[in-house]
């Protein structure tokens, strides 16, 4: 599992309920093709209340007035679980891509008057303000056939036995919440507005992790040749430049570079096989 956000080391005791202000500088955009602008808001937080970035966005929504007193619209953002398991609230906070729900104000802006900068992810088309459209990530899961081809939904007996070690290995890949942090940080992954080009553009680390997940499962590996076809085709694993940014930003600490190495090897062998089969 993930390691917790480091607790602020200042164990200096503080009074409960001390109120302070933080500023939010937010990159806003009213919709695709519209100009971007920055707006700054002042938000009151109470030390120790556990306020995160999203709680502050809610406060802004309830009182959409900038720090200079200008009236504006509530900021638009995406959220779901509020506990870092759904991936919805991913954005750039102070220049680093992460989930906003697990970003506590007392940690990221510990002092009175500190500023937090919020920007939408850059690698996906903007919908509005902090909300981007990541449907490409879900489409990519089709490209790599990220599923187990079971016979059907009626019971036919248990699945294959699995050692605890293998379960642990698969489990960690299976916690990928399609958040896109790894893609946002990857120098090889670019925004592609033309959906018809998605299938030949670089798949990105999370999809390679899914290939590894399913190729390790006794039933799902039946589709391994097809997954490896995708991995050897244009936009496949060989386009990874090994910058290792992905693994540094993955909130679930998924060993993406291990997956890239393993899938890379499998793809090479697969390519040679295909070559000799003349396919």
């Amino acid at each position, binding site marked *: 599992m993930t390691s917790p956000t480091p607790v*602020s080391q200042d164990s200096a005791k503080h009074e*409960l309920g001390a109120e302070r202000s933080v500023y939010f500088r937010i990159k806003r955009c009213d919709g695709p093709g519209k100009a971007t602008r920055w707006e700054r808001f002042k938000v009151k937080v109470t030390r120790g209340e556990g306020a995160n970035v999203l709680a502050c966005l809610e406060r802004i929504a309830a009182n959409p007035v900038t720090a200079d007193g200008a009236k504006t619209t509530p900021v638009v953002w995406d959220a779901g679980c*509020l506990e870092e398991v759904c991936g919805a609230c991913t954005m750039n906070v102070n220049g680093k891509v992460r989930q906003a729900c697990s970003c506590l104000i007392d940690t990221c802006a510990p002092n009175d008057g500190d500023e937090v900068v919020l920007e939408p992810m850059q690698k996906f088309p903007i919908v509005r303000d902090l909300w981007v459209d990541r449907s490409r990530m879900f489409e990519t899961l089709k490209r790599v056939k990220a599923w187990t081809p079971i016979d059907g939904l009626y019971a036919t*007996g248990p699945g294959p036995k*699995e050692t605890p070690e293998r379960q642990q290995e698969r489990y960690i890949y299976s916690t990928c919440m399609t958040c896109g942090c790894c893609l946002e940080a990857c120098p090889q992954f670019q925004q592609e507005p033309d959906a018809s080009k998605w299938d030949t553009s670089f798949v990105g680390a999370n999809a390679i992790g899914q290939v590894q997940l399913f190729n390790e499962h006794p039933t799902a590996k039946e589709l391994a040749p097809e997954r490896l076809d995708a991995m050897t085709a244009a936009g496949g694993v060989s386009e990874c430049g090994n910058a290792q940014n992905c693994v540094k930003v993955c909130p679930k600490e998924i060993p993406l570079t291990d997956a890239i190495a393993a899938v890379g090897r499998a793809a090479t062998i697969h390519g040679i096989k295909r070559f000799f089969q003349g396919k």
Partner: protein
Amino acid sequence: MAAGSGSEKRVIVIGGGLAGLAASARLAEQGIQVDLFSIAPVKRSHSVCAQGGINACNEVARQQGFSEWAHMDETLYGGDFLADQPPVYEMTHWAPKIIDLLDRMGVPFNRTFEGYRDLRLFGGSLFKRTHFAGATTGQQLLYALDEQVRRAEQDGMVTKYEFWEFLWPVTEEVDGERRCVGMVAQDLRTMQVRAFRAGAVVIATGGCGLVFGKSTNSVSCTGAAAARCYQAGAWYANGEMIQVHPTAIPGADKCRLMSESARGEGGRVWVPRTKGDKRDPRDIPVPERWYFLEEKYPKYGNLVPRDIASREIFDVCVNQGMGIGAENMVYLDLTHKSREELDRKLRGILEIYEKFAGEDPRDVPMKIFPAMHYTMGGLWTTFTPEERTADSVMDRDSNRERVIGMQIDAKNTMSTNIPGLYALGEVNFAYHGATRLGANALLSCIFDGLFAGVGIANYVRDDAPDEEAVSSAPFDAAVKQEEAKVESLRSRAQQGLTDPAVNPYVIAQELGKEMTDASTVVKTGERLEKALNKIQELGERCSRATLADASLWTNQNMAFTRSLSDMVKLAEVILAGGIERRESRGSHFRLDYPDRDDDQFLKTTVAEYDAATGRPKISFREVITPLVKPRARTYGKVEKSSDPAPEPRETVAAEATS
């Protein structure tokens, strides 16, 4: 204008949590085209939040005396016998098959040394019957179903409409009977309002945590979809049955679960003796701390059962105003334990606290408070009972002469009172009675989709009216109605800060607070009546609520405000049911009627919307109890009070996350 239909009959599924995905997969397998709608990408549905596990009888437990029948009995007993029994029979008997199926899909269930599925102990059972996948069972199950639905999507059987919000079911009288023939939805990006035709509509939109303000639920759990069906004539059952989890971490945006194992491992609950004391807890000397559970229950101390813990914490904070810093919070203190021991036993849950509360619970006492957690009530649904005798192939309890389950191909399985409109998963009321056992919800959602999917396919093939038989008039009318709501909201928009009386966020906060105070842990008739008045006021203010955004592009402000007025309607149903149910049962505790009263209230509460007054009409229906005779739900409390044989430590520890 209704679009989206070809010549073949389709089913609209609204919601892509476990229930909606299971139904979509089943319908696609049956050769039915599915249009799957969700306000968020289905892979981000609330079901990802479930941590603890999923229950099913298994071979190990069976050899120790457990059975599907015993699982059914626990579920009925846990639910204080308010659930109709045949659906629970069927669900618990399908459970092992469902685990096998999920296993085949590749769910990484935890394993034993030999490679079999591992099991854990959970509240409400003496047997290990809970299967789990790491600390994210719900996420893992949701992903497995999401993958199968993506496969069906690739095969052309499922069409997804993500970022679409369901607004209203469309009904029409066909051959003298009112049926659901489609629905109206809005694209949350373009804000286009549009009608969709279908042979049947399945509501799988989850629970209503947000009615209570901060809950353990996700932001999509508003209950608005159910409230809209109710206002369109669908019955809502057992609304008052809301489960509260005793130890949640109150956050600024939501309450996150804190496992009960923290108490199991010696956590002590206290508040400062001085009202409103704002000192750092570490500066408050022991004599100035009130360990109220230890004081009131010297024998059990902090290990009193869940409902008692909730009630006492609630009483100290809400009634006596003794919460930390006068807020609704108490300390759950583990700091007297060594770091080493805490890390060994509780590391996972302490890390969750650290991550979201930003404090190290090994150094500073945790702050916790009970929080709304699960919606047992929901849209009323029906089924066709099926009697099976000893020689029936489907019956596993061959030692019983006669059992009653649900007929698999029946077209009314989980149908609301409006034919063609179905409700599956947490949004219906079917399985958990007056309270839900931990790790039974995931099961009920998946079972619902897989089982009811068969009957829904039959209904659509055989009974759903042909498209030609339904004019476009009801669709046009529903679109008009919803467009009018949009326009009315927009017409009141003004940028910047609005008067708190009509600020939707302020109204939502007041709604959550009132509902939490009046209608969660402890209820009285008087307090509920007072809340009902307050809700009327909020409803009136809601009708004047002012937006800060008039745009017709991704207007979340509008979607939020619209949902709010539906949440207010649901709050009325919850309160009205609570007022009429003059007894205590399961999660419903009435201080003024502390005992269960089977003579009068072994009955399902049914709320019907009265269009003339806009208020719910409450009536009661018999609970169907052919299998197990209702008995007192004591969990051995009586014996314990004389000589406490404490619950097995493991049970307390294992009540865990549910």
